[in-house]
C-alpha cells in the first residue's frame, strides 16, 4: 500500500472508494502519455493550429521606461484561444478523453474561463459537456455563461455552500461518482487528488517551455524574476515549471482582497489565516477555521478566490523555491489602468495581481535585469466586472439604456 502524488507532505489522493478505479484508469493513461513524445507533438501541433501557440513574449518597453528598473516582458496567454491559459490544460485532457474512449466531459468553473475552454474543447471533439458554476459566479460572469451555452454546454448553477468555485468542484465530483463510465472530469487547476496536480502542470508547462526559449532568443539570457498570479495555481505552475532548475526567482501573487488584515481575501500561502488540511481529495493549505470548516473567501477576481491551493506550490513554498505575496483589489485596478494606458494590453483581473507585485519590484532592480510577468488571460471579455470596478458612469448609463430597450 503506497501513498501517491505527494509533493513533500502535500497532495495525495483522498478519494471516495467509488472513484478509486476511475483514478487508477486516469493515472495509467497519464503515465502512458507523459513519456510519449508523439503525444506531446500531437498536443503541440493541435495548440499551434487550433489555438495561438506559441503565444508571444512581449517586451513592455513603455512600462519599463515608466518604472525605470528591470526590463519587463509579458508572456501573452491572453492571446491563447478563448483568451486565457486555461485551454492548454483542457485540450490536453481532451486528447486523453479521446484515448480513453469517453463521450462526456464535466468541469467546474469560477471566473468562467475554464468553463468556456472546456465547452470549446467539447464542441471541437464532439463531447457532451456539463459545466458546474457557483450561483454567485454565474451572476458575476454572465457573459461567459452565454458563451458556454452557445458552445453547446449545459451550465448548472450550484446553489449549495458558498456558491463559488469550491462548491462547483464538489458538485462536479458528485456528477462524476454517478457517471464515471462515460464521463471525464476536466479539473481546471493544479489541485485535487493525484494525478490532477501533476497532470495539469504537465499540460500547462507548455507556457514555461516557450517562455524560456523566447527570453533566451530575445535577450540572450535567463530572466531574474518571474511573476504569476495564484488561484488554484495552474498558470503559475505552467510558467514556473520551465525555470525550476534555473537560477531564476519565482514569485506567486495571491488575492489580497480588501487587505490581509481584514480576512476578506484568498491568500493561502502568504497569510496566517490558512492552515494545513484535507479537502476536495488532497492535502494542502486551506482557508479554514480551527475545526476544519472552510471559510468564505474574497477577491475582485473570480478566478482567484479558491480556498485551497496547488499542493505543488505549497511544497515549493516550504522548500523556499517560490516566494509569495498578495495584491489587493484596489492595487489591481490601478495597475490595470497603467498597463492599458502604457502598453495597450488589457490583463484579466486575475493576471493583474501578478503585475502589481512586478511593478513594486521592478523599480528596485537594475536596468540589465529582466522580469517576466505571466499574463494568464485577457480582461476585455470581463467587461462587466471590470467596468464595475472602474465605476465608469458612461458605461453604467449605457447598461441602463440597454435594459430599457429590453423592457420595451
Amino acid at each position: 500500500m503506497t501513498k501517491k502524488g505527494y509533493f513533500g507532505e502535500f497532495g495525495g489522493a483522498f478519494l471516495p472508494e467509488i472513484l478509486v478505479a476511475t483514478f487508477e484508469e486516469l493515472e495509467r493513461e497519464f503515465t502512458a502519455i507523459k513519456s510519449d513524445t508523439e503525444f506531446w507533438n500531437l498536443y503541440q501541433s493541435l495548440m499551434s493550429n487550433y489555438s495561438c501557440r506559441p503565444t508571444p513574449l512581449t517586451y513592455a518597453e513603455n512600462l519599463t521606461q515608466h518604472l525605470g528598473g528591470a526590463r519587463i516582458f509579458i508572456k501573452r496567454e491572453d492571446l491563447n484561444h478563448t483568451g486565457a491559459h486555461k485551454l492548454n490544460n483542457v485540450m490536453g485532457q481532451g486528447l486523453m478523453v479521446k484515448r480513453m474512449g469517453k463521450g462526456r466531459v464535466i468541469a467546474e468553473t469560477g471566473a468562467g474561463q475554464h468553463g468556456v475552454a472546456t465547452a470549446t474543447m467539447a464542441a471541437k471533439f464532439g463531447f457532451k459537456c456539463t459545466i458546474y458554476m457557483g450561483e454567485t459566479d454565474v451572476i458575476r460572469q454572465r457573459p461567459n455563461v452565454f458563451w458556454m451555452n452557445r458552445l453547446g454546454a449545459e451550465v448548472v448553477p450550484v446553489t449549495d455552500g458558498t456558491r463559488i468555485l469550491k462548491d462547483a468542484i464538489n458538485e462536479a465530483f458528485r456528477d462524476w461518482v454517478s457517471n464515471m463510465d462515460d464521463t471525464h472530469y476536466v479539473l481546471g487547476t493544479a489541485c485535487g487528488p493525484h494525478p490532477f496536480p501533476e497532470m495539469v502542470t504537465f499540460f500547462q508547462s507548455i507556457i514555461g517551455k516557450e517562455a524560456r526559449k523566447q527570453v533566451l532568443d530575445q535577450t540572450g539570457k535567463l530572466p531574474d524574476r518571474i511573476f504569476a498570479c495564484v488561484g488554484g495555481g495552474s498558470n503559475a505552475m505552467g510558467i514556473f515549471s520551465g525555470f525550476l532548475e534555473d537560477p531564476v526567482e519565482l514569485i506567486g501573487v495571491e488575492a489580497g482582497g480588501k487587505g490581509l488584515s481584514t480576512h476578506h481575501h484568498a491568500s493561502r500561502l502568504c497569510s496566517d489565516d490558512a492552515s494545513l488540511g484535507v479537502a476536495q481529495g488532497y492535502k494542502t493549505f486551506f482557508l479554514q477555521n480551527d475545526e476544519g470548516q472552510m471559510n468564505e473567501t474574497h477577491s475582485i477576481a473570480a478566478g482567484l478566490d479558491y480556498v485551497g491551493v496547488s499542493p505543488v506550490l505549497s511544497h515549493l513554498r516550504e522548500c523556499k523555491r517560490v516566494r509569495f505575496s498578495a495584491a489587493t483589489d484596489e492595487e489591481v485596478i490601478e495597475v490595470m489602468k497603467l498597463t492599458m494606458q502604457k502598453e495597450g494590453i488589457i490583463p484579466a483581473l486575475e493576471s493583474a495581481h501578478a503585475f502589481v507585485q512586478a511593478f513594486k519590484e521592478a523599480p528596485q532592480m537594475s536596468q540589465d535585469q529582466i522580469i517576466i510577468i505571466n499574463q494568464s488571460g485577457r480582461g476585455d471579455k470581463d467587461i462587466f466586472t471590470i467596468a464595475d470596478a472602474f465605476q465608469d458612469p458612461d458605461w453604467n448609463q449605457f447598461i441602463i439604456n440597454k435594459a430599457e430597450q429590453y423592457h420595451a
Partner: protein
Amino acid sequence: MLKQYIAEKLKQKDILLMTHIVLGYPNMEASIQLIDIMVEAGVDLMELQIPFSEPIADGPIILKANQKALENNVTVKECLEKAAEMTVKHSIPFLYMSYFNILYKYGLQAFIEKMSADNIQGAIVPDLPPEEGTDYIQWMKENKRAPIFIYSPNTSNERMRVLSSHGDGFIYCVARKGVTGKKTQFSSEIDDYLKRCRNTTSLPLALGFGVKEKSDIDFLKGKADIAVVGSETIKIMNEKGFNAVADFISNLSA
C-alpha cells in the same frame, strides 16, 4: 467489540438496521431527540455524522443537512459532547461518520482517543482510503475502535480483500454508483455484488445508498447483515415530522 455485537444480534434477527443522522440538524436538540426516537423504535446501530462544509460524497438531502447544521453554528466540540451523552444513555453502538479534515484538524490521535473515552465504537470516513490512512488504522486498532471501510460495485475483488484486511466491525457496501439519497434498483445485480463482497471478507456486510422501504430490507435478508437507512429518514423528518420517523423505523425493524 462491534463485530461481536453484530454477531450476537444476528442470532436474534435476520438483518440489522443502521440509521444515519447529521448532528445539529435541524438543530442540536432535535437531532438528539431523533436519536432517542430511533433507538426506541428499534434500530440496532447508528451513524452520527459530524457536519463538514465540503461533504463531497453526500447527495442533496444530507448535503443540505450538513449546511444547515453549520449555519446553526454547530461545532465539532459540541457534536462530540452530545455523542458522548448518547453512548451513556443508550445501549446500542454508535459510530461517527465524517470527512477526514474534521478528524485531522481535531488531531487524529486525540480524536480517536476521545472516541475510545466516549465509547464510540467505530468510524466511517468516506474520503480516507487505507493508502492515506495508515496512522488512522493503527490508532483505531490500538484503541479498539473499528475503522469501517467501504466497498463499491466497481471495487475489484483484489482491492476488496485489501480493504477488508484493514477494516474492522463491518464492511459498508455502497449499493450503486452516485451519491447518497438517490433511488437504487434492488435486483439480481445487487445480489451478485453482495455475493462478491461476501467472498472477499469475513466481516459482516452492511448495505447502504438508496435503502428506503421495508421491501428493500426484505430483499437484503440473507444477503447482507445490516441495512443502512440514511437520507430517507431525514426526508421523512423534513416532510412529516418526528412521529412519522418513529413509525417508519418501527416498520423497517419489525
